[in-house]
């Protein structure tokens, strides 16, 4: 796994007009140190060797691409291919980032890790790498997300992490992130903040992109191997944007459509479409699109999927939107659920609710592209964490 050197942020950590560092002074020095440690690590073959070995033997990489033949046939358009991040150890793409950041935390000499989690997948990935490396893990999680992603809360506990419930606000990802950052501000000298998405202050959006970009690098080579051509479109769900940027990055200079899928929630006023419906503001350390009122107060969001239920988005996606390189569309709770069930029944794969948003949109894109075309979807995670909530909702 090598780290690509293209499309870097500028000296202030900006992608176009987005990004930067908007945090209290107390953590600015730590961001400088992190940036230096990251650059050292990326230039160090030993870091890559360690990461590759863990990727292969601990995480289970490379993940396959898979032609969803029956789904493609039912949809009746382009071939739909899945990049199977759901097959990773711990069940989602989040572990790619957690492994890389754990190695960097060790290089920084920091043995306490704080993180936020929404769906619990990043919390589980954090707890997992902390167990693996003997680090202390403290994971902040919204009370509402603790309720709807219960299995992951249990897993984090078994792995030895302390899960701190956050009751502020709506008790979802944004509130958990506030508390993780506040913890870090108080403990920054001994603690590494293991952010879970390609968001936050510089260098996090770049760091997380680089740690996730193996998704797209692998998938691109795998597509060329299996199909002798590149896909016509790549599709991924966008919460903070880490699985999406990880998939998109390898394809951004190719002639293919790039489609990010945000949560359209109830399909009306309650949604989490920061890119499609937000305004330019500052949240959690960077300038990007934010769901906020005209005063800049962050407004309530909704999605059936805890991992997409977030009013901000990583700054590089804002840049891809502003430059027209990527499009960002919404899928509602209901349509994501329908996509969820179709993948279960037609392919024998239970997807995460987050990924189900990408699947629902991929069906539409496959019809637009038409027969003879190819659509590649990021299947960011598996749905084990969601089965209880879906069963309760549907009276199963």
């Amino acid at each position, binding site marked *: 796994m090598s780290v690509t050197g293209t499309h870097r942020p500028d000296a*202030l950590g900006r992608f176009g007009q987005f990004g*930067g*560092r*908007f*945090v*209290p*002074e*107390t*953590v*600015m*020095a*730590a961001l*400088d140190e992190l940036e230096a440690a990251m650059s050292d690590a990326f230039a160090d073959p030993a870091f890559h060797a360690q990461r590759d070995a863990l990727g292969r033997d601990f995480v289970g990489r490379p993940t396959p691409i898979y032609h969803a033949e029956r789904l493609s046939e039912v949809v009746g358009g382009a071939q739909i291919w899945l990049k199977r991040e759901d097959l990773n150890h711990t069940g989602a793409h989040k572990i790619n980032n957690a492994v890389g950041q754990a190695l960097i935390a060790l290089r920084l000499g920091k043995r306490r890790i704080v993180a936020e989690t929404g769906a619990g997948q990043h919390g589980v990935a954090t707890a997992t790498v902390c167990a693996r490396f003997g680090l202390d893990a403290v994971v902040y999680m919204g009370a509402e997300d603790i309720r709807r992603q219960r299995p992951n809360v249990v897993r984090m506990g078994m792995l030895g992490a302390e899960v701190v419930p956050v009751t*502020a*606000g709506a008790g979802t990802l*944004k509130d958990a992130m*506030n508390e993780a*950052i*506040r913890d870090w*501000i*108080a*403990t*920054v*000298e001994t603690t590494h903040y293991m952010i879970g998405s390609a968001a936050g202050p510089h260098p996090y959006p770049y760091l997380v992109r680089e740690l996730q970009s193996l998704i797209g690098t692998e998938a691109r080579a795998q597509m060329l191997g299996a199909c002798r051509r590149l896909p016509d479109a790549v599709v991924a769900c966008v919460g903070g944007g880490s699985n999406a940027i990880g998939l998109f990055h390898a394809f951004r200079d190719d002639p293919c459509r790039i489609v990010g899928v945000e949560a359209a929630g109830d399909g009306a006023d309650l949604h989490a479409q920061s890119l499609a419906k937000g*305004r330019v*503001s*500052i*949240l*959690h*350390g960077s300038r990007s699109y*934010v769901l*906020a009122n*005209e*005063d*800049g*107060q*962050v407004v309530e969001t909704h999605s059936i999927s805890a991992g997409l239920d977030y009013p901000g988005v990583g700054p590089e996606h804002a840049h891809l939107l502003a430059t027209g390189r990527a499009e960002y569309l919404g899928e509602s709770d209901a349509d994501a659920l329908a996509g969820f069930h179709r993948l279960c029944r037609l392919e024998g794969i239970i997807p995460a609710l987050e990924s189900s948003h990408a699947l629902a949109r991929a069906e539409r894109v496959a019809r637009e592209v038409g027969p003879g075309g190819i659509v590649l979807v990021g299947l960011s995670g598996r749905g084990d964490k969601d089965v209880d909530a879906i069963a309760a909702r549907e009276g199963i």
Partner: protein
Amino acid sequence: MELKRPALVVYLMASSDAPDLAAAAVRGGATAIELGIPYSDPLADGPTIQRAAQRALDAGMTTAGAIAILAEINRRVDVPLVPMTYGAIVESFGLERFCAEAAAAGAEGLIVADVPPEESGALRAAASANGIDLIHLVAPTSREDRLQAAADASRGFVYLVAAMGTTGARESLDVRLDALIGRVRTAAGGTPVLAGFGISRPEQVAAILAAGADGVIVGSAAIDAADRGGAEALEVFVRNLASGLPA
């Protein structure tokens, strides 16, 4: 901004009772008022100020409304007024519009907790065009280059963060505080250095001034006092703190 030294700055959250509270704080000995403009996600603030901000927002406080409260306070007291808020709030209002309206309402300084010197160019220009002193923060973790950059970029005073973490009253301040005050004093030249975060007691005030700071900023503990017993309790609290100031 002409700060009386030693300075005792009391932080209040913009709300309908803020003008009465500001008057009480000044009666008790406050030499300047810092007025929080509420933000939904204040990363630099601990539970007390978070709660005060949420209460203000729940009661319908807007940025325009907070500026109106500032103007009301300006009619009631004769000390420098310094709004304090976050980048999302001033950017959403418009940097130029914010500085112009805040200045018209009597603001002499401005603190934006999450906009460090490298990001504050446009804000500095808007503030200075409107005669507002933009104040930057330095922390126990700031290395010399950052400390100097913050001191150089600051007008009015340099805000020294006296404790690691978010705002909130504390038993003990950062162990490096004395040394930090000395470092910031040197970097700041003639610009006053005020310490804030965690301060709640006269002994802390006395120690900070003895270490060479030009004043202190008291936030959460003042809000706690006002929450407990309104303007009267706040006045008593401030008077007690002022007893830590040299005569």
